[in-house]
């Protein structure tokens, strides 16, 4: 129990600290790296909650794909972040005021918030049945009860792929590609012409 508590505070602290670093570090590449650290620690939090599937997905999808994509974008687009940051102090008072108002409103709402009595037990049970793992339970739902939605989501991804190809693929004309089959199939007669050239005439 004590190890779990320590692990929770460790993961939570690193998540928040690296989230702060994401928005405060000067170098955008460092920001993305801190974002990855935040993702890893959130995944740790998910594992503590017994949601190992979400943890794995978080790492595979967000670290593996999204963060790497961010890294590419940050490196490829030459955005001048120092310029974007200019005037930070100038806008601090108004931004801080709006943030403060939002915070007060949130406190008002949360102080009147009443959780349903059964909410705590429902939230604690990661698996409806009990003796099967989280991933197993999700898989059973997705491929049986929600097969229709699963297929629909697949179609949406297919359309996204078609769309990306339709809007960006260009067949460039005038590009000289090497066609090895053509090169090999070439005969001597197609390549070399023998001419008799008379003296002092040229072709």
């Amino acid at each position, binding site marked *: 129990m004590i190890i779990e508590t320590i692990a929770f505070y460790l993961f939570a602290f690193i998540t928040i600290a690296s989230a702060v670093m994401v928005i405060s570090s000067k170098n955008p590449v460092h920001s993305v790296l801190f974002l990855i650290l935040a993702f890893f620690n959130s995944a740790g939090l998910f594992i503590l909650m017994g949601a190992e599937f979400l943890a794995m997905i978080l790492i595979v999808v967000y670290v593996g794909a999204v963060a790497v994509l961010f890294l590419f974008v940050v490196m490829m687009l030459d955005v001048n972040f120092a310029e974007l940051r200019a005037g930070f102090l100038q806008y601090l008072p108004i931004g801080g005021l709006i943030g403060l108002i939002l915070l007060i409103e949130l406190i008002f709402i949360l102080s009147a918030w009443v959780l349903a009595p059964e909410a705590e037990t429902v939230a604690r049970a990661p698996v409806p049945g009990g003796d099967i793992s989280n991933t197993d339970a999700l898989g059973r739902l997705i491929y*049986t*009860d*929600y*097969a*229709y*939605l699963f*297929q*629909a*989501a697949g*179609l*949406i991804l*297919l*359309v*996204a792929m*078609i*769309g990306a*190809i*339709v*809007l960006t693929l260009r067949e460039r004309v005038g590009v000289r590609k090497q066609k090895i089959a053509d090169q090999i199939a070439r005969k001597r007669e197609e390549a070399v012409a023998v001419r008799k050239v008379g003296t002092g005439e040229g072709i």
Partner: protein
Amino acid sequence: MTSTDLIVALPEIFLAVMGMALLMVGVFARGNPSRLVNYLAVISFAIAGILAVATFDGSQSAFGGLFRVDSFGLFMKLLVLLGSALTLIVSQDFIEREQMARFEYGVLFVFATLGMMMMISAGDLISLYLGLELQSLCLYVIAAFRRDTARSSEAGLKYFVLGALSSGLFLYGASMVYGFAGTTSFAGLATEFAGEGGPAVGLIVGIVFIAAALAFKVSAVPFHMWTPDVYEGAPTPVTAFFAVAPKIAAIALFTRVLIEPFGDLVAQWQQIIVVTSILSMALGAFAALVQTNIKRLMAYSSIGHVGYALVGLAAGSQDGVRGLIVYMSIYLAMNVGTFACILCMRVNGRAVEGIRDLAGLSKTNPMMALVLAIFMFSMAGIPPLAGFFGKLFVFQAALEAELYTLAVIGVLTSVVAAFYYLRIIKLMYFDDPVEKLDRPIGRDMVVVLGATGLFTTLFFVFPALILDPAAQAARSLFAG
């Protein structure tokens, strides 16, 4: 999941498989397979329609309530399939002329239509959202299909950004509703709200968000800002498609969401619908007066038409929904016809979009002028053309529901709107041509124009053809 589930969803499964098969045809066929793929897509729409009718067996739920089939859904699906097929037929010549004939066009139409059918058949907020996204994603791509022109790309990007915003609104509202009701299925929500005295405030907030997102999809004021720009920027056949099939699907979805799960909360959403309806009718009438581009004009006109259709929904009664269904059927015919005429507007092989370009059409192409005049009179709501009956039924329902202000404002705005429809007729018949429009128009066009024109003119002879199924469809929505 059982085999009956698969049979209930057979039209959708067929379209999904055909979409993927057409993709393969497009990739492996020799030459430019655009025409082949488009014709196969039209045939698939026809077969899907036949399957939908053949497998229909009363109101049924499938996949544990995620998917729902009833007369209302069937009727709306047939309208959507018809709209998609007709716009795809009239597209062909245009996309070939404008060098945008790539086979993905037809494939995206198939997937968009599939998304619309899934929206119409949704029995759960999750399946609704997935259908909506499938449809929207296809539409964003089709809007930007002419990627080399700045305006088409701009239209696609604008539609995408604002569409993503509305999806966000929808998800936020849906999560609120789920948080307060504990279920996302329409049947579950309906029983949840049936007995209670007053719904929680958070629930109303959720419904407002969902209504706002759906109002965005049907482009009702005040969520219409994207419509004129997207309609003007997108290639004309795409605009024709946008104005017809997605709009009918979104209206059907709007109706189902408000009547089925939130049917017992009429008092909560009626005022929202009344206000958006009045604003849409007014904006559709007044903003269109100053337009010079005919596609922009049609965009404002479609905003106005959505306003009239929402009058039927605002009534919240079976007659109101019947009026709405009839209105959308007639709207389909009028709009497909008008856009077919717009697609025929060419000067020296170049497509033109100015309203002035129609001047003197009665002298250069009297048949087309006559058909376009019929559509304009019908849109203005002049008896005995079909458009008059569409308006008649929704206003009748509004009067029965004692929404007198709404009905009176509706009639007044339709008088204003009549001005710009009649202006087009005046241009065609009483002004001198500046530049002659090209002739001849394609054979496909003649067939589509003839069919929609005849329907619009002769609706009053056989109104029962639409009225009876529409009444049955409305009944099925209120029974379940």
